[in-house]
């Protein structure tokens, strides 16, 4: 078990290292000059020498005039001190502050959406595997849901419930005319705004998990241990119960593998509903060419995904006796 975790941790450490390196490399090796772009955007002055001065100033400020390896080490150094720069678009707020403001919204949106869709999808998928009739009605629904692009489902929900029926707001995290404070009205407003983005993330995920579980159950019901139980006259209920329990294990691993897709879904969903999480922030950063903010968003996303992966690993070990008793179940 110790080996299982040390192996995982090595992978995560390497992933983090690679991600940071990518994060550092991209603005430097892509065609185009980020500082020039930034200056043209904010163009305060049309005086070429003034622009050149600002250019030099910023180049020096961001350390872009140093040798590459120095830049790279500096990047790590400031990163480890929790400093990932200052947002140019929300100047002069440090990027970390900007991101910390967005993170609660992401947690509030993603955690329930991921967990509930996973739970409900698995239950529903197991239910679908019960009979051919159920299977034929539930499975197509699952396939349609999982094939739907997140933003389109978001758009449809926003249109139906926000515009046509007008029962849910379609933008922001709370009413524009409210200030954050602790009151029932405000909390109500938070949930009111939360519901549609949550629903669109939930539904797409739900379809995928339901399909996955349905296939797992059918596979498990054909396993030798199921046949043995049948031969000993065990009731269907017990056999299904075992199949569900064993089928859920790969679904846990599947959750870890799906995180990237779910994060992508969350990004666009936040964009559709102008929900002030990291996805929305990232879009704003891209549109305003705020490179430090882009880098910061990327880092936060990576850290979030790695943490979630680690939590899932721990849960997996707790649930699968095979890993606990010294055997490595899933390899990495």
């Amino acid at each position, binding site marked *: 078990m110790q080996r299982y975790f040390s192996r995982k941790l090595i*992978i995560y450490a390497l992933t983090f290292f690679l991600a940071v390196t*990518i994060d550092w490399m991209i603005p430097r090796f892509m065609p185009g000059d980020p500082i020039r772009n930034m200056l043209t955007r904010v163009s305060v002055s049309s005086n070429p020498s003034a622009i050149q001065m600002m250019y030099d100033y910023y180049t020096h400020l961001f350390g872009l005039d140093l040798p590459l390896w120095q830049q790279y080490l500096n990047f790590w150094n400031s990163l480890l001190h929790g400093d990932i720069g200052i947002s140019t678009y929300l100047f002069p707020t440090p990027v970390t502050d900007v991101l910390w403001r967005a993170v609660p919204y992401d947690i509030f949106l993603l955690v329930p959406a991921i967990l509930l869709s996973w739970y409900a999808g698995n239950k529903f998928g197991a239910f679908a595997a019960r009979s051919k009739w159920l299977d034929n009605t539930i499975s197509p629904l699952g396939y349609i849901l999982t094939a739907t692009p997140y933003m*389109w489902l978001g758009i449809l929900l926003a249109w139906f419930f926000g515009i046509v029926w007008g029962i849910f707001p379609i933008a922001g995290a709370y009413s524009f005319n409210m200030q954050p404070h602790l009151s029932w009205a405000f909390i109500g407003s938070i949930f009111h705004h939360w519901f549609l983005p949550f629903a669109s993330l939930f539904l797409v995920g739900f379809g995928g998990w339901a399909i996955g579980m349905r296939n797992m159950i059918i596979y498990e019901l054909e396993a030798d241990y199921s046949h043995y139980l049948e031969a000993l006259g065990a009731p269907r209920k017990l056999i299904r119960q075992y199949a569900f329990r064993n089928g859920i294990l790969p679904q846990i691993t599947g959750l870890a593998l799906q995180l*990237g897709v779910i994060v992508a879904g969350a990004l666009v969903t936040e964009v559709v509903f102008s929900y002030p999480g990291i996805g929305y922030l990232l879009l704003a950063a891209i549109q305003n060419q705020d490179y430090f903010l882009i880098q910061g968003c990327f880092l936060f996303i990576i850290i979030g995904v790695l943490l979630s992966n680690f939590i899932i690993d721990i849960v997996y070990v707790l649930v699968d006796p095979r890993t606990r008793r010294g055997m490595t179940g899933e390899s*990495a």
Partner: protein
Amino acid sequence: MKKQKKKNEFLYFTLRNRKLQIGLSIILFFLGLAIFAPVLARNEPFAYVNLRGAQPPSSEYWFGTTFFGQDVFAQFVLGLRATFLVGAIGGGLGTLIGVLVGFTAGYRGGIVDELLNMLTNIVLVIPTLAVLLIIAAYLEVRSIFTECIFIGLTAWPWAARAIRAQTFSLRTRDFVDLAKMSGMKPLKIIFTEIAPNMMSYLVMTFILQFGGAILNAATLDFIGLGPTNAVSLGLMMQYAVLWGSLLLGHWWWFIPPGAAITAIVGALYVMNVGLDEVFNPKLREM
């Protein structure tokens, strides 16, 4: 004679499988629209043809017109082309890299496998879209082609993982040893002994990669990081949302592109299940 029989059996299942029938007809329908797009589209996609601006579908403009009076149908069929292109090239590249990495890791084993496996797991953990976003953000000019390349370059890990596992189980089969004892070189063994046995698997991998590439491209386009010089279904959705089609009730603008993507990707998934049933006799319904 017997081979004929075997082929026929396969064909029989392929044609009889309802999931394959449904999936394939949907794909062929949209593919047809995409291929004949230049004939079907009666207007330039971005031309402001309807001076009255947005209008619901009519006999003149089948899918209505946009806020600016552009022909939605023309954008739609041409956007389909981009969708299929992304699926084919992006999905194809993803499959190709996955195949190369998977074959190498699975066949060579040992330290090569350890390293490739580690690389695969690392890339698997990094959220693809986040990487694509920042790459796209720094590119000033983006074409559908570059989009395809980057999607392909980031989508391969799970394919590599799956193919590695398959190769691993095949390479321990005795016929591989027999091929070695016939003096065959490793590369030849991989391509003439192992790969043909995995054909069904490779096809299914490609189908899933195809669908995944389409969804990824739609997301990129929607965020505004799609091709800067072309029309695509994701871009249509982006413009629709950007120009208030929700508030103004221009449903004909945002429904067709999303519906087409859902239909195509859903059809691909369903086809995949159908193929699995055909290839895997255990799943065939009696």
